[in-house]
């Protein structure tokens, strides 16, 4: 298991060196987006409208942060469960999304899209939202403000600690449960 410091936007070369289990400290701009925002992004694509950010090389963080208290760029900001975005992820990956950040399993369609288009799925530690917020140095809503915690935010991160859960070669980190039957 290797450890890398990477900057966004991510390139094919960045993705090709990553393997499940690697630790990545990610820096640069990432975009928040979860359930309702993904639906809106899909609606924009269906309507042939531009998205609020460039998907090429982009990283999307599945997060709905708590409100920023005075003097802080953001509140608590840990990952939400990723499978709910599986219905939308393959399309975004095919359009240039290089990384999604969340927690929990992805379905076969997402994994296939990651292999085909060179993308990875990162895990962040669920339930460590206060700790993870320390790595977010700036945040501003860039779309869908009406969604409140689900709005799309442009976040600046510094050494955001991630684990490669699914790489672009079919590798997966999660333990398979030992079921007897």
């Amino acid at each position, binding site marked *: 298991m290797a450890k890398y410091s990477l900057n966004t936007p991510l390139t094919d070369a960045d993705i090709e060196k990553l393997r499940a289990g690697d630790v990545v400290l990610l820096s640069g701009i990432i975009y928040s987006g979860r359930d309702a925002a993904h639906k809106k992004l899909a609606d924009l694509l269906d309507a042939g409208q531009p998205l609020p950010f460039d998907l090429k090389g982009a990283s999307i963080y599945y997060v709905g942060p708590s409100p920023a208290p005075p003097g802080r760029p953001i509140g608590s900001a840990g990952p939400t469960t990723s499978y709910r975005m599986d219905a939308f992820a393959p399309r975004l990956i095919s359009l240039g999304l290089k990384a999604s950040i969340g927690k929990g399993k992805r379905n076969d369609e997402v994994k296939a899209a990651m292999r085909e288009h060179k993308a990875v799925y990162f895990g962040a530690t669920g339930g460590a*939202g206060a700790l993870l917020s320390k790595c977010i140095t700036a945040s501003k809503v860039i779309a869908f403000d009406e969604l*409140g*915690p689900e709005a799309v935010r442009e976040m600046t991160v510094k050494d955001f600690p991630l684990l490669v859960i699914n790489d672009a070669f079919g590798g997966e980190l999660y333990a398979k449960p030992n079921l007897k039957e």
Partner: protein
Amino acid sequence: MKEIKAADISAAVARMCVSANTKLPDDVRRKFEEGFKNETTEAGREIFRQLLENADLAFETKLPLCQDCGLAIFYVEMGEDVVVPGGLNKAITEGMVAGYKDGYLRKSSCDPLTRKNTGDNTPAIIHIDLVPGDKLKISYMAKGGGSENMSRVTMLAPSQGWAGIKKFVVQRVAEAGPNPCPPVILGIGIGGTFEYAPKIAKKALLRKLDDTHPDPKIAAMEAELLAEVNALGIGPMGLGGSYTCLAVKIAVEPCHIASLPLAVNVQCHSARHEEVEF
């Protein structure tokens, strides 16, 4: 009759919402410390290390432990001799709304169809049991969506018995895998009815992780189920290890002769709850 002021209830509820979301309960912290020492995988120990650091930081900064501050669940035991002028539900709801606003807690409640956020985390989910006496006990739980989504209710056939119950619970945890933020805590409701089993399952999650069920038979069932779930090896955040589940809490109630209702309420490791008594 004992009169309790609505304003006092609201103030206490507001305080509980903020406190529970920013201070990890001591029994949960002790389990994290134990896991940090004893987990068999390095990745699992690292998760416990991060969770302990997160708890310290949340306590110092008053940032929520988790950005998902949950739907606000209240289990109330209200003495029959207690009266709350202005109304108990209103007092709890107003306290919850104030706590979530002033504590910078996330509002996570929305219309199920339009998905429009209600904006103030309402409604509070309030379960009231009337009990003899003049005490009022209000327990608050911040219940996150990720673990709630992994919960299930099923109506087993009576012939399936304890073996069928165990099989369902173990399979549920296996299928949930990393999704609900393991190590989880399981609230298990056995018996009752279709709506009552999950109600007692969730209430069981209010117990201390290191308590022992007063009925030795149920205590033994909890221990047996805990061992079987931990044998799955899912580990902290699904990265492998011996800490898949921190505790199993079982509630048993009589049921219909035709039924064996079973509810599995999955709780993430960030088990945030507090109680107040008047």
